[in-house]
């Protein structure tokens, strides 16, 4: 699904130059659940954002399903995002002016899906995420766990092939966190590829494989015992 070779990203500010990613290479296969770990500032989010086409690399190659996407223009990026990707963030990133239902519905609107079909799909997802009863609430009226469930619902509504999650449990307590991890696992089992950034060894255990970053470089890849054949 994702093939990355010698990916580089450099941030330049007036005084300093930070090499956020230094010749990173990795492959994520269809149907995999990969966790990316490493200390704060090592480049995890940068990597995830480049994979998610939210940011551009300064060098190297990144292929999505065999197509080079490193230098896609803005329109193509938006298109790829809305068709194939779903995002889950640590800070939920729901739109405060929209209700739960409207937030979840939004990707379908951008995809140009008709109202009737939208309604049907949204209700299905909300049922699944057990948030249907709160569909007309605004994000501020929900608990953190509930908000993240809405975010996950929004991420999966367009049936993406790849879900990118940046510390999805970072702002949640352990029981809410586990719930979200269960959701992701379920999605993965249903066939969706997942790349997740996390600080938590506990969460990383849900993944098939852990990629460790340090100072912008891949230092180790280990496969969890339970998934070794």
């Amino acid at each position: 699904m994702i093939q990355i070779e010698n990916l580089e990203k450099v941030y330049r500010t007036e005084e300093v130059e930070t090499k956020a990613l230094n010749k990173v290479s990795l492959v994520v296969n269809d149907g995999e659940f990969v966790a990316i770990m490493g200390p704060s500032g090592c480049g995890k989010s940068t990597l995830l954002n480049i994979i998610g086409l939210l940011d551009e690399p300064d060098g190297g190659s990144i292929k999505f399903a065999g197509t080079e996407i490193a230098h896609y223009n803005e329109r193509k990026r938006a298109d790829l995002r809305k068709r194939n990707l779903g995002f889950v963030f640590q800070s939920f990133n729901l739109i405060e002016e929209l209700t739960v239902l409207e937030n979840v519905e939004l990707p379908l609107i951008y995809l140009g899906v008709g109202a009737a079909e939208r309604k049907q799909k949204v209700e299905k997802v909300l049922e699944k995420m057990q948030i249907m009863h709160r569909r007309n609430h605004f994000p501020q009226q929900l608990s953190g766990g509930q908000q993240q469930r809405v975010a996950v619902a929004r991420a999966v509504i367009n049936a993406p092939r790849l879900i990118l999650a940046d510390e999805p449990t970072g702002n949640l307590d352990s029981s809410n966190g586990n719930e979200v991890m269960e959701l992701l696992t379920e999605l993965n089992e249903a066939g969706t590829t997942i790349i997740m950034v996390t600080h938590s060894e506990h969460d990383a255990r849900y993944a098939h494989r852990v990629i460790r970053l340090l100072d912008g470089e891949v230092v180790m890849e280990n496969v969890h015992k339970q998934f070794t054949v």
Partner: protein
Amino acid sequence: MFTNYLKVAYRNLIRHKGFSFLNIAGLALGLTACLLIGLFVFDELQYDKFLPNGDRVYRVYTQGTTSESPESMASVPPMFATTMKQEFPEVEQSMRILMYSAISLLEVGDKKLYIENGLIADSTFFDIFPLPFKYGSAAQALDAPASVVLAEDVAKRFFGDENPVGKELKMNKQTLLVKGVIQNNQSKFHLKVNYVIPLSAAEIPAERMSSWGWQQFYTYVRVKPDTDIKQTQAKLQDYITQKVQPLMPKDDPIGFVPYLQPLQDIYLHSANFKFDTGPRGNITYVKALSIIAVFILLIACFNFVNLATAKSVQRAKEVGIRKTIGASQQQLMLQFLIETVLLTFISVVISVVLASLLLPALNDFTGKDMSFNLLTNPVVFLLLVVLTLVVGLIAGFYPALVLSGFKPVKVLKSTVVSEGMFGRVQWLRHGLIVIQFSLTIFLLISATVVFLQVNYLHTKDLGFNREQIMFFPMRGDNMNRSYETFKNELAQGPGISSVSIGYGFPGDAVAGDQIIVPKDGEQKLHSTTHLMVDYDYIKTLGLELVNGRNFSKELTTDKSQAYIINETAVKEFGLGTPQQAIGKTLIWQRLGPSQPDSVKKGQVIGVVKDFHYKSLYDKVEPAVLHIHPDDYWKVAVKMKGENISQSVAHVKDVWGKFSPDYPIEYKFLDENFDQMYKAEDKLKSLLWIFTGVAIFVGCLGLFGLATYAAERRKKEIGIRKVLGADVSTIVGLLSKEFVKLVVVAAVIAFPIAWLVMRKWLEDFAYRIDIPLWVFVAAGVAAALVAFLTISYQAIKAATTNPIKNLRTE
């Protein structure tokens, strides 16, 4: 998708109430001002558009070639109409109106009323101006000399609701037959018409009517369709130089060039014409108001841009999320534009309501009868729709571009989105604030200069005393014949200090003619104003004699052989000093060289200080005062001011004794004078009102910006306070930036305002020098207003407990 946009737009509006209020209020106010100005301007542009074939009608006017600044004269000699009709094949019809401004007494049975604005016109009047008739018909209405056509409301005053056609009416004791009644709705006609009588009734000798020098007629021509009017005008000018000039006597050549003015230009483009008549607008003021409207709209739009970009920080996250989900920049732009258009739409609705509420006041103020009804006027409706879209798009485009251009990683990653991320926005915002303040300062300076000039017009020492002078024309044969006894009886009344009878009082009509000044064996002709006065003129008006003496009843020669001249005449006639002028000879040929009996030859016996007998638009011209009872017409009664009403009652009593047939109609001279500056008075008020609106709208925007600035720097302020900064330091910190912008704006506005206002003042012969303090005051006022607006937020920010702000981070 659309409903989603509207939904978000609506919720944003509600969520950020303060922001929405500032935006809507500013825009609504600005639009209201624009709507009202727009209505006014539109109305001013409607004059004479209703007349069939009006686009083929032209007025002949002349421009002087002799004086240095050629003056345009609305009245021309009678031969123009005759010649153009006869010798110019493209001229279909011509028509003259006699210049004659007297008020006439109309009588029907016992009803006697003075009616102004009667026209004495060629019988082709209704051919050139096909005004709609209520009774009778235009055909042959003016063919017989003793005919009159009345305006509807005049007819009503005499005849009630019955049809007066065929009835008799007396004008100044002469019997006329009513031939028709024209409908009342001529509010957009460049002439005020209460009645029309045929020129043939005036019985002007044919010899006079064939004159090329007697500039006494407003002359109109209608040309055939597709006439090249430039060519006709050139032809007319050639005709004057080639055919007419050779006929003229050597010492009295034609001193003008004729021009053709389109009928529909007359109302707005004749402000500086001499001897014009009828209601007139002024294109300068129409333009000035239009520019102000654009200024106000710009200020309101800029507010919008500034507030929206300032607020964009708050919406950055939303943009990031939407983009992450897959929204394209175009979709986001559309979303933000829809929001702006929605806000604009609400503002437009409010402004329509406000404008309709304020329209009666504006009508009252301008004496107009404007209406705007959305339902009956699809043009207005369409205009509003277009306005909504245009303003919405102009104001919304840039913020939409900025907002939709946010990079999602940037705005989603950082917990605090800072302004610094969008560097160009700051520049633009500062640029717009500078423009807003430049416009405001420009308006402030203009309004102040206009105020000072108008004030000057009203209060300038005119060289005579215009207070408490009752002023009226004499009426009836008896009064005219025994004017001396009339005058004596008036003067005996209580509280009356002196009475003067003559022709040529300040603010009223004056006569102009030539005078001969013999010098070095030559007879030099000078154009001059003739003031036909009596022995008490100087005393009544409080004129100051700089040399020589006043006319004296004891010296019989003073009546036939004495002149008093003003200082300008001394200079223009080349008589040296006022002292040297005394004793010099002047010769007036009242009826021309062919009538030696009418020649008045006399000496200068005195010199009066220059006084402004015309408006301050005009330079004081050379004036000659002499005793000339033949032309006595107007009466000025100077009162002591102890008991005016008693004095007025006395004047009325005496009037009744001498002219019981005529009711008295009087004014006071100062009113007469103030009337001359009505247009400027209105301009002054309108300028102040709209400058106020502009400032207020600008302040709304500034207030919003200050709110955001304080909000943005909450944490910084908190830290500074913890470190020991006091309130004034922090207020200074927050205000400094804005006040700096005002200074830049002032630097831009000053020279422009100076140039524009100097140009405006050039129209006045007597004008103020723009004082330096006007600029200082405008700059300081703008800075002060800015500072006060901002300091409210700054003080609020500076006085909050710092711990609160630091904790919320």
